[in-house]
């Protein structure tokens, strides 16, 4: 039977492609490896569809070893995430294949391995497989991001590894708790363990899982690696890391918290998680607004989006802990939907940012501008991505953000005053994040594509072949499709998250309209039709007034010819908001007078720097303290043999006297 080989294809293709290109070290093989990756992604998508049609499928391989049998399983929830992720994978594979600077063997190998580990992590039904896939994701993404660069500075990459390894250690601890409590290594055999774990330990486990996965999602304070990685690494890697890796993290997090452990009565924990997620989202939005590089904006934007998703998941936990299953299911559905949407538009945006950087040779928005005229195709698809990420109708980000907002509006179902204060606050945070992040995306688009070019590279970007643009198109279409006609997907999502909250079937979609408990719903299809109709009407009305006569002229310049320096800069653009939130950013300003030979001309230099608070106030002191402590310990290895012998003697005497 054909569908039975799909999972094998999905896993074997990238593995064999990676091994083949590693052994043969030929660029053509590397190119073939990307094709294999795309094929594997397609088979993953097909498998997901099969699972969505026929229900959960499990494959297991018996080993006589300590790990009993390895198994992979795909449930409908996983299938939905895998479906969208694999479509994105296929696009990114094509993007890498067609990219101008060509295919490198190393890139192809790492791409395939990374994709393999992501897919494996999504379907893993075994503790070891999950942990292996998870760590291999970190390692391959790290190698992909840093390995091919010649720069001396590996500290940023090291930060990434260290932080994710810390997260992995927490996950290892958490899953080891689960495994010893259930006596199982199969994940699907774990169900509702909170009863046997006890409230304190299950809270600990949930927190560890949350922080562990959070380390990849950029949860505060684990986000420090994100901007540097996104700023430096190739967009192939970042576009997968931000999307597929996040999908894995959230998917397994949801499965663990709601399925394996079960929420129980963890109200305080849920509120804590919501608080942390809210801070993450806010911090991400604030920082996204101030970054000069497009890829760094997108890094913080990932942080913001993941913060919102985790906030909604936290709300779902809160509802669940009070026994309100329906809103919990709705919140989970909203979060998962935003997750898949984020996959689509973030991959599009990161690929776009990478293309811009390579076409112009400029990474900073301070030196870009005007690309909409020279790269119209890219500017159009990028606009779709920006509108999606800014949650504007009729694109997908809008629908999922609407649903997330809506899910927080069920405070009246729970009579606890704490919750009734917390949920409105969550809404306030979400609203603030959305607004600030929208400003950041606007700035990203406006200063990259609009206005006049700010550097020579931006004046004459390398032209883009259609094959380069092609991988963007399915993603852009998907952004629109998921925004306009997402109701079948939402219906599936709602059905697949409802077992997690213990409710047989939550009805959230009626016709094409989404709502819960009849509290006002959204009909994305209708709204989009109205929008399209409005625009069409305007167009027809204007046509009726006669053809447009268009004259090109100079920009209004008040009589002073405009040059590069008269244009608004991205820094200037965000300056008012910097002033508003000056307490948050705590900018370090330095005004220096330049010594000049002439007494009549005064030169003044103004410098403003936004400190990376978490790095400078938390991590650097922490590591400095650790090193200082280690240096003190190091003194014990003084080189004196007498001292060494004294250690032995003292140890011995102390032990004998104390324990005799």
């Amino acid at each position, binding site marked *: 039977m054909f569908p039975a080989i799909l999972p094998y294809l999905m896993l074997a293709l990238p593995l064999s492609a990676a091994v083949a290109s590693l052994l043969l070290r030929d660029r053509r093989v590397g190119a073939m490896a990307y094709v294999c990756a795309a094929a594997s992604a397609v088979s993953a998508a097909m498998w997901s569809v099969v699972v969505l049609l026929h229900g959960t499928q499990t494959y297991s391989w018996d080993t006589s070893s*300590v790990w009993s049998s390895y198994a992979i399983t795909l449930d409908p929830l996983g299938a939905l995430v895998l479906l969208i992720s694999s479509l994105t994978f296929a696009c990114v594979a094509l993007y890498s294949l067609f990219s101008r600077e060509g295919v490198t063997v190393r890139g192809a190998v790492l791409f395939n391995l990374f994709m393999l580990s992501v897919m494996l992590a999504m379907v893993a039904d075994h503790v070891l497989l999950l*942990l292996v896939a998870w760590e291999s994701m970190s390692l391959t993404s790290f190698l992909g991001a*840093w390995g091919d660069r010649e720069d001396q500075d*590996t500290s940023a990459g090291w930060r990434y590894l260290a932080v994710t390894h810390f997260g992995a250690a927490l996950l290892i601890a958490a899953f080891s708790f689960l495994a010893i409590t259930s006596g199982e290594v199969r994940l699907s055999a774990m169900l509702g363990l909170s009863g046997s774990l006890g409230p304190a330990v299950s809270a600990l486990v949930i927190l560890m899982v949350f922080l562990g996965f959070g380390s990849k999602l950029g949860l505060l304070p684990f986000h420090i690696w994100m901007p540097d990685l996104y700023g430096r690494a190739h967009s192939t890697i970042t576009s997968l890391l931000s999307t597929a890796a996040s999908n894995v993290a959230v998917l397994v997090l949801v499965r663990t918290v709601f399925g394996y452990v079960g929420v129980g009565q963890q109200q305080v924990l849920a509120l804590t998680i919501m608080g942390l997620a809210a801070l993450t989202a806010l911090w991400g939005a604030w920082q996204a607004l101030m970054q000069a590089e497009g890829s760094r904006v997108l890094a913080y934007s990932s942080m913001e989006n993941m913060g919102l998703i985790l906030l909604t998941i936290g709300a779902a936990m809160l509802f669940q802990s009070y026994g309100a299953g329906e809103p919990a299911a709705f919140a989970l559905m909203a979060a998962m939907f935003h997750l898949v949407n984020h996959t689509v538009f973030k991959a599009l945006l990161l690929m776009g940012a990478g293309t811009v950087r390579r076409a112009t040779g400029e990474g900073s928005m301070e030196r870009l501008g005007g690309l909409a005229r020279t790269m119209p195709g890219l500017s159009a698809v990028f606009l779709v991505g920006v509108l999606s990420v800014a949650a504007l109708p009729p694109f997908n980000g809008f629908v999922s953000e609407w649903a997330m907002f809506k899910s927080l509006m069920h405070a009246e179902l729970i009579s606890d005053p704490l919750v009734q204060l917390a949920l409105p606050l969550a809404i306030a945070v979400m609203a603030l994040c959305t607004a600030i992040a929208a400003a950041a995306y606007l700035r990203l688009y406006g200063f990259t594509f609009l206005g006049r070019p700010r550097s020579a590279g931006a004046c004459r970007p390398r032209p883009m072949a259609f094959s380069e643009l092609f991988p963007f198109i399915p993603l852009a279409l998907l952004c629109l499709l998921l925004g306009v006609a997402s109701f079948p997907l939402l219906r599936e999502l709602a059905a697949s998250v409802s077992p997690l909250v213990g409710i047989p079937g939550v009805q959230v979609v009626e016709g094409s309209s989404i709502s819960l408990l009849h509290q006002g719903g959204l009909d994305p299809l209708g709204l989009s039709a109205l929008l399209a109709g409005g625009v069409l009407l305007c167009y027809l009305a204007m046509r009726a007034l006669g053809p447009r006569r268009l004259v090109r002229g100079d920009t209004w310049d008040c009589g002073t010819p405009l040059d590069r320096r008269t244009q608004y800069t991205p820094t200037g653009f965000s300056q008012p908001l910097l002033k508003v939130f000056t307490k948050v950013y705590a900018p370090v300003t330095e005004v220096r007078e330049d010594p000049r030979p002439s007494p009549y001309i005064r030169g003044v230099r103004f410098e403003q720097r936004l400190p990376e608070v978490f790095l400078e106030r938390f991590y650097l002191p922490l590591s400095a303290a650790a090193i200082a402590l280690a240096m003190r310990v190091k003194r014990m290895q003084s080189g004196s*043999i007498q001292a060494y012998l004294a250690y*032995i003697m003292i140890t011995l005497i102390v032990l004998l006297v104390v324990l005799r």
Partner: protein
Amino acid sequence: MVELLLLVPLVTALLCGMSRSERSIFTLSVAGSLITALVAIPYCHAAFFQGPLDRGLWYLDPLSALFVCIIVAVTALVSVYSVEYLKHDRQEGEANIRDLRYYHFLLHLFALSMLLVVVVDSLGLMWIAIEATTLVSAFLVGFYKKSEAMEASWKYLIICSVGITLALLGIILLYASSSGALPEGTDSLDWSVLRSVAERLDPALLKVSFILMLVGLGTKAGLAPMHTWLPDAHSQAPTPISALLSAVLLNCAMYGILRAHLLVEAAVPGFSSSLLVAFGLFSLLIATAFILTSRDLKRFLAFSSVEHMGIIALGFGIGGPLGIFGALMHLIAHSLTKTLMFFSAGNVIQKYGTREMREIKGLGRTMPVTAGLLIAGMAAIAGTPPFAIFIGEFFILSGALASGAYVPAGLFLLLIVAVFAGMTYRVLGMCSGEPQEGVSEGEIGRWRLLPMAVLAMTVLVLGIYQPGPFMDAISAIGRLFGVSI
């Protein structure tokens, strides 16, 4: 007979010592170590699957068989690796043909003494063998005859001798404790006899005896704060010898501690295991500090050995099926992985002519295969899945959590993360960047990559899939500890 297992390395050592040409030395050495490995197979098989071999002086139970396997395997790999290593040394003028003879004579003698440690029945003879390992390996540590090497071997000799003397006192007290338990006139130092009466040994004497043995053998096993000789000796010895020291010698001392632990645990439950946990964690703590600050590649690896011996002690201390399995797995995996790490370090050091990690740059460019294996080894040694060490750490952690030892578990987790951070920082620093002037591209030697590749594959496979016989052997050892794995 077990004597054959000991005879082959002895003969190899003597033949190597008498050979005239470089070629014949290398051939003899490799052949000898491989034959030893072959000879060991039936013994180990019997010990694992047919119960202990108890023949007079010799005693081979599953635990000894495991150590025999590790010793012969690592020795074989080391003798293969040594070929090109010493050729390179000879080209550089660091060693002449006499040194070669001397090296191989001692190498096989060293292997012999370590084999002796694990196959004798009497604890007294075990002590003698352990002291013999110190005496033989001191010459190997001082192989390069530089003043640092002299210093290191002196410290090694003195500190380990002191430690081992304390251990002997412990053995004496153990012996004394048995006098009440055994029938008059049959007091014995044989482990197999002591084991059978373990519950009736005098607890007061046993406690003091265990402390003395733990401190004494712990010195040799590299448990902090008695580990001080270890970085010196490891850094000064020729790199293949460092591998042997780290991967096998430390384990031999750990073997002695385990033998004592098994006895004490039967008579005074909980006493020795809590001491093992304490020493394990302390070693982990101290080693972490040094790993974070070390600059010398081989010292760095030596401290990593301290760390891992700490983890192994922790695992055995935690006990239970999970802890014991984890510790055994970790012990095996650490031997193999650390050998791989030292081999990689040997390539790097011979290529760059320095051990200073800050002066080593751009390995990814100059020696891509070594760099790849180094990174794989680093990932493995830092406990990244799916390498075998991860399995060990995972089970030790699970064991700690299952037994409710949350504080040790938390500390353990925190420290291995810190170690990971320190490890990656250094290794990445070496692999990236621009190589300095005068370092040509290309690996040094192809054959030395073979044992490394074998090791890397083994730790990888062992992490993902543990073959049936392997698990059977482990569970045979587990039964010795009274747990069913």
